[in-house]
């Protein structure tokens, strides 16, 4: 556990009762923690106080008599005496509410906030009960769009600055601001600059009135009709806690939950609005079998499972492979792992889709960081993908550590990254030159002396991952090895898929057995065999090896579990070759995709909000996910499909329900000995529990390496980095988000553009080894020289796949 300095405690008196509170803590929080609620609008525990709404006025005894002051910015000091309910305070509270209401439209019956509105609630509790205002109210045009997602009703706004503070202080993209003053003050965007923030939905959630509303929820439900359940967002692996809210069996809203260990209550708009895909008309409703003519038709579960059992049973176990499982729960992943290793009997199991890091690095690191280590670091080394695009929750945590806690930040990236504006130091490099940069950083090279100094002062937390898809996985591993050599350093290796860390922990990796036991660990394997019976002795193939094996014919059959290797893997052409070479492909999925068009059988599975279980985040923290709606049509939980399949294949999975699987995980997976649902669902550990390293962890050796990606002959190395809003299945089926994917472009450093005689905005031909694209050119001074940046995961760009170097020329060909 990361340690924190305990605060000095002082004794203060609140309404006559003595309470012990940390010195300097704001009275509003001290009072709340000791059971006295002081009403408020602008105060938010995750932001700096502004004392604007004046609702939290209290009286404090001072040597100069009683003073009336706001509790949100009054720090607790020894022997302070606070009165939250004096006559003066009550009169002031009534007065503030009257002032807030005189210009409020009181359109509560048609306001989405009605029923969960702090202004309503506090008016009931502290308000004057009648209005003395007979003048004309302030009028504004009713809601105006601030962005594609968020609308602003300025008549309802009480000008508390929660939204503007959030976007300035927390998310760092202050696209909304107060304009005007006094009675004419309003919150608005800048001309021609929409509130296009990845985090805009948070402002809607923290708005204490119905001024800010988000399109996906507007007029969808009344708060008193909502059912809600706590869960964890599976958009990425950061483990953001969410509340899933439904009306009439339909998810209508996701809100953030303040998990002190992960998201602090904030969500990216992708986490918040991607629920729309759950109820997409495109969801698979029944099992599908492809007929002789290659056409899919609906089948019964019996027909489909018979066919799958028959096909998988007709080949040797080790001719079967499985890709995917990183979007499933731990229980589902465990069932899959057990099914593959004991029923099918194959070692060729990989939850990652060929674009990620070695599983031993991801889950077997002895100095593995918790997310809280970001807060405790003196210096943060960030050499990974752009967190703002790939890990928005971690982006906010690093931003917070730098801007509020004073950490130093070094960002190493091929171009501008989301945190550059708060970085102490940025290092740019051309993809392929990372090994050289690392060697110079680790040696005495003058160029990186400043970075080395920062890394030698105090605690370092290194966040490592693949900066882009053209980078070799050896680079982040070498960076981790370097960071490991710094005294006291903690390392947070990144992999992005929702529950990829849980899947690896459950043994969905070619080299790992459940509970972080390496397949080469004879004692560990023997222990598992005592529960499961004989297991394949060797390490299996990873996804790239599986695809190669299918092409060569060494492998015959493939399971794809929530995986789309064509779209999502390292090389779309190789994936297509592999899938069309396979004798049999079965896909467990929620949607049709580019890969399961090659599947003989497609089985509909339950997804987020439809399954109960647990997930494990990037730091190894296990949290509970919950089911609040049924899956559509005949879709089923993955574990139950596998259970039935195992029976048909003459095996026995014994997965009676997800809770039973959870118990088996604790029994057979060493790192998960202390895991049980009750522990993370109820009581003090609801923020989740980090699974300890356990006895299965192998000491890992790293060799810094140089992938040597070079571009010759005037060509440019490709930086193929991800963006948040992509062309992926779930975004495509979330109407509010689908339109937000950026238009593709190729970015070049000005000197490279001028060497090629290209100008900003013109359409260019980008030619790789196997694909080419027409793209507009963006001249981007933040680029490393000699590199071209193309967003990797857009609908039109993913076809570049394994391309590493490109040439770029004027599309007209006119020179």
């Amino acid at each position, binding site marked *: 556990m990361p340690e924190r300095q305990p605060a000095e405690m002082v004794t203060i008196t609140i309404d006559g009762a003595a309470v012990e509170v940390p010195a300097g803590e704001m009275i509003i929080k001290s009072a709340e923690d000791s059971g006295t609620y002081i009403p408020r609008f602008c105060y938010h525990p995750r932001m700096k*106080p*502004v*004392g*604007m*709404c*004046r*609702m939290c*006025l209290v009286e404090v005894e001072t040597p100069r008599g009683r*003073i*009336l002051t706001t509790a949100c*910015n009054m720090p607790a000091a020894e022997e302070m005496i606070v009165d939250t309910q004096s006559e*003066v305070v009550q*009169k*002031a509270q*009534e*007065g*503030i509410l*009257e*002032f*807030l209401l*005189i*210009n409020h439209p009181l359109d509560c019956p048609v306001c989405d906030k009605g029923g969960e509105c702090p202004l309503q609630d506090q008016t009931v509790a502290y308000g004057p009960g009648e209005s*003395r*205002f007979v*003048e004309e109210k302030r009028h504004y045009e009713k809601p105006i769009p601030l962005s594609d997602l968020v609308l602003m009703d300025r008549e309802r706004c*009480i*000008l508390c600055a929660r939204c503007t503070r959030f976007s300035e202080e927390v998310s760092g993209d202050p696209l909304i601001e*107060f304009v*005007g*003053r*006094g*009675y*004419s*003050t309003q919150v608005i965007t800048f001309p021609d600059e929409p509130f296009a923030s990845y985090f805009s939905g948070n402002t809607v959630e923290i708005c204490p009135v119905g001024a800010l509303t988000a399109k996906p929820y507007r007029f969808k439900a009344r708060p008193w009709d909502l059912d809600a359940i706590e869960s964890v967002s599976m958009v990425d692996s950061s483990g953001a806690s969410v509340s899933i809210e439904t009306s009439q069996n339909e998810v209508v809203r996701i809100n953030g939950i303040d998990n002190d260990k992960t998201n602090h209550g904030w969500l990216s708009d992708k986490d918040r609005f991607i629920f729309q895909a759950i109820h997409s008309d495109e969801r698979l409703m029944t099992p599908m079998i492809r007929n002789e003519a290659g056409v899919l038709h609906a089948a019964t579960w019996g027909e489909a499972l018979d066919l799958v059992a028959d096909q998988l049973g007709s080949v040797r176990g080790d001719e079967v492979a499985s890709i995917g499982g990183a979007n499933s729960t731990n229980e589902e992943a465990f069932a899959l792992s057990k099914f593959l290793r004991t029923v099918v009997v194959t070692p060729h199991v990989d939850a990652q889709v060929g674009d990620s890091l070695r599983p031993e690095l991801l889950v077997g690191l002895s100095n593995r960081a918790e997310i809280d280590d970001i807060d405790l670091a003196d210096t943060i080394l960030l050499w990974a993908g752009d967190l703002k695009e790939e890990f928005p929750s971690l982006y906010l945590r690093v931003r917070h550590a730098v801007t509020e806690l004073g950490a130093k930040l070094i960002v190493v990236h091929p171009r501008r990254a989301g945190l550059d504006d708060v970085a102490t130091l940025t290092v740019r490099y051309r993809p392929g030159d990372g090994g050289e940069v690392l060697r110079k950083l680790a040696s005495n090279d003058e160029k990186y002396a400043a970075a080395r100094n920062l890394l030698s002062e105090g605690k370092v937390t290194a966040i490592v991952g693949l900066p882009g898809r053209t980078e070799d996985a050896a680079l982040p591993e070498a960076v981790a090895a370097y960071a490991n050599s710094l005294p006291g350093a903690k390392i947070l290796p990144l992999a992005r898929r929702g529950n990829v860390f849980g899947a690896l922990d459950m043994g969905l990796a070619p080299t790992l057995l459940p509970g972080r036991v390496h397949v080469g660990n004879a004692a560990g394997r023997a222990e598992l065999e005592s529960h499961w019976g004989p297991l394949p002795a060797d390490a299996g193939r990873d996804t790239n090896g599986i695809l190669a094996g299918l092409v060569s014919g060494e492998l015959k059959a493939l399971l794809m579990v929530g995986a789309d290797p064509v779209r999502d893997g390292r090389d779309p052409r190789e994936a297509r070759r592999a899938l069309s070479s396979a004798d049999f492909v079965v896909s467990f999925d929620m949607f049709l995709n580019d890969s399961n068009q090659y599947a003989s059988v497609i089985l509909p599975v339950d997804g987020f909000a439809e399954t109960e279980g647990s997930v494990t985040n990037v730091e190894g923290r296990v949290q509970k996910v919950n089911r609040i709606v049924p899956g559509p049509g005949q879709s089923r939980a993955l574990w139950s499909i596998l259970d039935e399949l195992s029976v048909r294949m003459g095996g026995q999975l014994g997965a009676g329900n997800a809770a039973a699987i959870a118990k088996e995980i604790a029994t057979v997976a060493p790192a998960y000995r202390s895991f049980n649902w009750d522990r993370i669902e109820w009581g003090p550990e609801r923020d989740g529990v980090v699974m300890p390293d356990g006895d299965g962890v192998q000491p890992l050796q790293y060799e810094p390496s140089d992938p040597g990606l070079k571009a010759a002959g005037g060509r440019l190395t490709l930086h193929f980095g991800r963006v948040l809003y992509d062309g992926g299945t779930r975004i495509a089926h979330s109407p509010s988000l689908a339109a937000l994917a950026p238009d593709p472009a190729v970015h070049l450093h000005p000197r490279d553009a001028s060497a090629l005689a290209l100008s900003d905005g013109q359409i260019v031909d980008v030619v790789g080894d196997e694909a080419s694209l027409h793209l507009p050119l963006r001249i981007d001074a933040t680029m490393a020289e000699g590199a071209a940046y193309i967003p990797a995961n857009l609908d039109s760009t993913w076809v570049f796949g394994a391309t590493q170097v490109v040439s770029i020329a004027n599309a007209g060909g006119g020179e």
Partner: protein
Amino acid sequence: MSFPLILTQRMIDHPADSHLIDVYEGAGGYDVMRKVLSGMTPEQVVAEVKSANIQGRGGAAFPAGIKWGFLAPAEPRYLVVNGDESEPGTFKDRQLLERDPHQLIEGVIISSFALGVNHAFIYIRGEYPKPARRVQQAVEAAYAKGHLGHNIMGSGFDLDVTVHLGGGAYICGEETALLNSLEGLRGEPRLKPPFPAVEGLYAKPTIVNNVETISNIPWIIDNGGEAFAAIGDENSVGTRLFSLSGHLKKPGNVEVPMGLTWRELIYDIGGGIRDDRELKTWVPGGASAPWFVPEHHLDVKVTKDDVAHAGSMLGSGAVIVMDETTNVVAAAHRIVKFFAHESCGQCTPCREGTTWLENILWRLLNGAGRQSDIELLLDICDNISPGLAWPPKMTTICPLGPSAVSPITSIMTHFRDEVQAMVDLAAEPASA
């Protein structure tokens, strides 16, 4: 009445060109700076200012020497001269900026030396283009002479001065709003603590002093703090510039020693009421100040404490005199309208309450008042300034909201019958 004209003598001697550096230096200007930089320690300068016991001339009348003592040791530190003179009725700093900018600059140099400041800012209200131009020209002239810049007079002391023009907001006269404005932020008062002397401009220790306060510094150092303290009254010393306006025979800026009575200031200095009408009421210290009336206040002394005991303040030195023909409800409405217009909008009571007050007064003035409006006005005031006491309590961050309360409590206290008459007028049938 014998006293030196500390601030305005040069303007009287050189009515056409007192703002030019040659005229200033010809009259001994910058000699004090030379004396300080060549022979005094910062501690000696601070000691003189403390012994002068000069109260700040911006409005709050806080002793400047004591304020200087609060300056935290962190580096760098800043001196900011508050020339955002925007209080209705106040125009004294304008004269100092326009007519004797070098006196101010010399004061800035001496003060900066004393405070360990190497960069000072002179913030001038946006509606003062001519004073700003004069100060800018004076700063340039001082640079050209080597009075500003690097290693002034070989003393090793460096000082840069930046002149900054506001954007047209009264609230930027509040010192922390002024600092926000200087930093390019919205002009909104900051939560205190921290106070500027600890965390001010760019979060560094900062002293904010009024133009008139700093303009007094050369004389104080030249003549000694005790000489300054000997002028005026024991609880408010020195001379002070008052901006006399309204129904007076001789309106304008006057420099007088502290401690006159209001009768002397209005009738002797201001020449009495125009057309020899009766004095009805006056605002003793800028639009924020509760009004005085002749029945009670003519013999009150013009000092900080005497005026405070009588329930008002000297504020920015603006004396607005109203004669018997004045509609006090209209006067109060005009002042409240000003504060409503100038509210920054941060605090709910000020943002919403001041405009509500303005609207009710407007109805009263236009024959649509209700009997309940009298109590309503007072209760809204009470919700902005609980207890309606003096000095005011506040439900707001800064005193702008409570400032709008002063004219209303003033008319309710002294002219309730006239307010009632407005209500009665409205109650009469239109046909009568």
